[in-house]
């Protein structure tokens, strides 16, 4: 069971209060009509899916309902940091 720190509520809460929202820091293309099908497909569907640290979005759906980012280890599930949606992660790469 994960205990997730919500950076808006400033509290550790049970994972059942949250819902997962997929990989973080994916930029929507500026002008979708101007790009190729391949770029659009990459934006919509293709993911990094790493086996070490993953930067992902979570929504505090049964709490403040805000979206925020989490950096989590994909094997131990240890949460390295949580940060607001507008912020960037403090450390990009973690050593295993």
């Amino acid at each position, binding site marked *: 069971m994960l205990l997730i720190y919500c950076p808006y509520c400033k509290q550790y809460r049970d994972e059942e209060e949250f819902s997962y929202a*997929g990989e973080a820091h994916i930029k929507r293309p500026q002008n979708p009509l101007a790009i190729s099908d391949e770029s659009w497909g990459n934006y919509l569907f*293709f993911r*990094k899916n790493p086996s070490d640290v993953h930067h992902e979005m979570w929504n505090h759906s049964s709490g403040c309902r805000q979206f925020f980012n989490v950096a989590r280890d*994909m094997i131990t599930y240890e949460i390295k940091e949580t940060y607001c949606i507008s912020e960037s992660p403090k450390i990009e790469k973690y050593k295993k």
Partner: protein
Amino acid sequence: MEKYSAFKLLKHSFSHHENWKRVWRSVSPKKSYDVVVVGGGGHGLATAYYLAKNHGIKNIAVLEKGFLGGGNTARNTTIIRSNYLWDEAAQLYELSLKLWEGLSRDLNYNVMFSQRGVLNLGHSLQDMRDIERRVNANRLNGIDGHVVFPDDIKKIAPLINISKDVRYPILGASYQPRGGTARHDAVAWGYARAADALGVDILQHTPVTGINCSEGKIKSVQTNYGEIFAKKVACVVAGNSGVLASMAGFKLPIESRPLQALVSEPLKPCLDTVVMSNAVHGYVSQSNKGDLVIGAGVDSYNGYGQRGSFHIIEHTLQAICELFPSFSRVQMNRQWGGVVDTTPDACPIIGLTPIKNLYMNCGWGTGGFKATPGSGYVFADTVANGTPHKLAAPFSIERFYTGALIDEHGAAGVAH
């Protein structure tokens, strides 16, 4: 290969069954192979077997990072059915089901395929509309199945609760009598034995740590035995597909998530069919050993840990106890998880990759076991000919660019 038969059993009984031959050889790798199959689960071994049997390629190696059938092949709930909604998926899974029907004889190995029928329950009017539509679509595709109602369900699975005063009463179900279960370990062992007999080298405890390409073409794979050269490489690594793809330098539309299952203590025979419910979200069958094999939901978030979240177990067992109130007193024996490779449309990706002569078969997600023979069959054809097999063509990675997705999410009684 020593052929198994009743006569052989009798013959070996005179020497106390101490002289049976090893089921497959223990080999050290050659310098190079025509085809290297990465992943020694059911799908990988089936691919190697059909490459050798149907396409006459003899110089094949299967590289497995752990032991044979120690990954998702041994971690699933062994349900087999082909009642998928869309034509493309239905035909692929039906090919598989047809191969299952002759598999024990083909491999000369008892995979204990038991056609005990599969019930997909409906709990709401919309569920029943979807079930009617799917059964009709199945029948047009030549797949058996019919709609059954609570009284029929009670006859098929007498312990089930069809009472109207539960939170989600059972209104009906689709029933596929040709569906059922098989013994998962036997599937891996049977394919391994048959492939080995055709000259396939099976290398266990051989993880692939790197993929070497030159000029966009596959050259070799890096392993603990050093570099193994290959004309073609076929990756069938389920949850680790993304990791292998990143070694080769491309991304996949796949997210890896843990899916868990659990078994109870052994009971006397009480359930001789497979019962699945999408709405209350659980599925259960009884193994030949007598334990109830219960499937749980997939975790909502990514992870490579071969375990699942606790609250998923709780929700699943709530569903099972609502369907079968008498199971509430059964104790659970073991629980485990496997890492499944989920795609946005819940359908697999079979075919070519941006790297020449590197092929991928992945994205089977939460329902790959049932497809083991068919997946191996079409993938072997794809690898041997360098072009997608007719049934595999709609499942190419291009569909994520063209938008021709095959949306089997929820539409086909997929329990996730």
